């Protein structure tokens, strides 16, 4: 181009669209074990490379290798596998329940189970997550009752949120799970504020913020990084890069920056990139970042590289914008199968035990589902009262709401 020639707008496009052959050959995947593990108090400037690589523990053979291995015992790993399997079974049943008209809406985690399940195990009682709608693994791995999750999804008479919220927008203070909002990224800066509060009160609790790749484009993401950086808040800033924001590929949100993790560097925030389908790697990185926060060393940004295998939601059909078989070509594989293979290799798991666990888990989920459905589903059985609709707008109901409640005949 010479000076004075017409300008043209650059609009990024994914490599492949429906009908094309999925191809991730241009996605660089470092060898497992190849990324060094710095001390948690390392100077952020000295570990800039970690924002451009991918921390991986499980190699192709299913062995745990390198400096990030060894943060969990066999028993803890088996438990982690069960958490991921439980989340997957839960998703399958709730997806089906939505198709059967028992609820209006659902969002799956297929392919991303390791991220929230493994991260949860690095947190302590009292720490607070500020999740998006795709981190239910935090609840599953945190021991939140599955029946209550289903009650919320069904908006039934036992719904902890009294039927006020869309399905999957859970909230539980006791389980360190902040109220989910439909407005993307709003919780990211709130997590920083919560962490600042913990520091103001000289507490020992930390916060974890969650956002997807697409939602990093929201202004709240920028504000969160500024505040976290300025006040050195004890927060882990998580970005789950599952490649897709509904139909929009991650290149639209990422733009020219090499990686999402790299965005942290401009704020002086140490940034790590991790294999999001590697339960061991996710846990090791979460442990590193949470330790930094607990030692008052400040925030850490973590990008989990994963793939959204399922549709965005029950209202979405991905075949309209990406190849149907794209998830099969995803080079980081399936988190459940990878951890299963690792445990088999270690001699603490087997195909038979896996099948047996699958059956047990399905049984547990179906039992919970039956109990939840005995309290009603969206259009049948017990439901929250109309009076509940008027409660909780304020701590005390003001006169105008009392008048409206009377008008509604309740």
């Amino acid at each position, binding site marked *: 181009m010479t000076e004075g020639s017409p300008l043209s707008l650059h609009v990024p496009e994914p490599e492949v669209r429906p009908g094309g052959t999925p191809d991730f050959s241009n996605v660089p995947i470092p060898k497992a074990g190849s990324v060094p593990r710095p001390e948690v108090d390392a100077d952020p400037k000295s570990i800039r490379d970690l924002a451009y690589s991918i921390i991986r523990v499980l190699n192709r053979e299913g062995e745990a290798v390198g400096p990030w291995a060894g943060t969990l015992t066999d028993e803890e790993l088996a438990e982690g596998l069960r958490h991921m399997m439980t989340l997957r079974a839960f998703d399958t049943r709730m997806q089906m329940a939505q198709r059967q008209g028992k609820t209006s809406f659902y969002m799956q985690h297929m392919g991303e189970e390791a991220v929230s399940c493994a991260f949860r195990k690095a947190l302590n009682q009292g720490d*607070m997550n500020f999740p998006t709608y795709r981190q239910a693994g935090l609840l599953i791995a945190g021991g939140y009752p599955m029946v209550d999750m289903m009650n919320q999804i069904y908006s039934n008479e036992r719904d902890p949120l009294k039927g006020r919220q869309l399905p999957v927008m859970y909230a539980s203070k006791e389980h360190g799970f*902040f109220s989910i*909002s439909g*407005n993307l990224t*709003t919780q990211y800066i709130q997590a920083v504020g919560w962490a600042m509060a913990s*520091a*103001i009160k000289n507490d020992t609790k930390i916060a974890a913020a969650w956002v997807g790749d697409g939602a990093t484009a929201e202004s709240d993401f920028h504000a969160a990084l500024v*505040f976290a950086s300025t006040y050195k808040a004890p927060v882990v800033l998580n970005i789950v890069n599952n490649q897709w924001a509904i139909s929009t590929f991650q290149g639209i949100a990422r733009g020219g920056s090499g990686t999402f993790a790299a965005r942290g560097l401009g704020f002086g925030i140490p940034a790590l990139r991790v294999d999001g389908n590697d339960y061991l790697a996710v846990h090791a990185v979460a442990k590193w970042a949470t330790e930094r926060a607990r030692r008052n060393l400040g925030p850490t940004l973590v990008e989990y590289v994963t793939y959204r295998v399922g549709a965005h939601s029950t209202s979405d059909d991905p075949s309209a914008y990406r190849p149907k078989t794209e998830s099969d070509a995803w080079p980081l594989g399936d988190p459940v199968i990878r951890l299963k293979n690792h445990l088999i290799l270690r001699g603490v798991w087997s195909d038979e035990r896996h099948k047996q666990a699958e059956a047990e888990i399905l049984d547990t989920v179906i039992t919970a589902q039956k109990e939840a459905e005995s309290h009603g589903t969206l259009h049948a059985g017990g439901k929250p009262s109309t009076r509940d609709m008027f409660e909780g707008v304020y*701590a005390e109901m003001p*006169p105008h709401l009392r008048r409206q409640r009377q008008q509604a005949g309740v």
Partner: protein
Amino acid sequence: MPRMTMIEAIRGAMDVSMDKDDDVVVFGEDVGYFGGVFRCTQGLQQKYGRTRCFDAPISELGIVGAAIGMAAYGLKPCVEVQFADYVYPAYDQIVSEAARLRYRSNGEFTCPIVIRMPTGGGIFGGQTHSQSPEALFTHVSGLKVVVPSNPHDAKGLLIASIEDPDPVIFLEPKRLYNGPFDGHHERPVTPWSKHPLGEVPEGHFTVPLGKASILREGSAVTILAYGTMVYVAEAAAEETGIDAEIIDLRTLLPLDLDTIVASVKKTGRCVVVHEATLTSGFGAELAALVQQHCFYHLEAPVARVTGWDTPYPHAQEWDYFPGPARLGLALRETMEA
């Protein structure tokens, strides 16, 4: 009783609240070391330390978003947006988050925050230092919206707002910071030290949210006003000789409907006045409520005297600002109707 400016009263309210409750924190742009561009937080950082009163990056959404997170933890943040005109970047956090947190989580998480912001015109502030955005907040269920008109109420209402368990939008008419203003820009302004409403008790006291006050009793017409407009209403009543009852609403949401209805039923006439633009302004809600609740007592249409439906201009300040002349005209028309 000591006399204070509204600035001193607001500062006093934060001082009393921070002294009483360690969970009260104050932050915003230029709020810390410097003490605020209007001096409302002067000395608080020195007295309570940098972790109780501090400067924030220039990010309104960051300030409000962080405050919401702090409130979820258990603190009681009282934050400042430098001008109400600059609250819009935080609007999503206020409307989608602060206002709904209690409701959507069924009380698992709550949001006891106060967002202070200087509001209103009459100071040659032009388009972005004069706006009155209260209607953008009164339309949001879950918020409380407060507008004091004098130092006494400013202190009592702010302490009540900080202690309130719900999010409060606290709009401070900056035109009233140093003295009452009746719209007569050609006359020198009386300082609060020479005005009885400048008398403010020392220490802790509250003025309850949701309660209006009757600034002037009258029998001919009810004027519904708040902020700077209560003094414009006083001047217009005096200059027209019309025996107006002036109600200072003080809290717009929740509204003290009982006081309004009792007054209009007594007078049979009502004029609503605010600085904000007319269309879909808070005056529309007031007029509709008066019409609904006082229909058989009304002897004239409910009138509204407001800012014009234009952005707030600079050079045409006094053609825009609803002064005593415009309000007086509306009062006469309402009396003759």
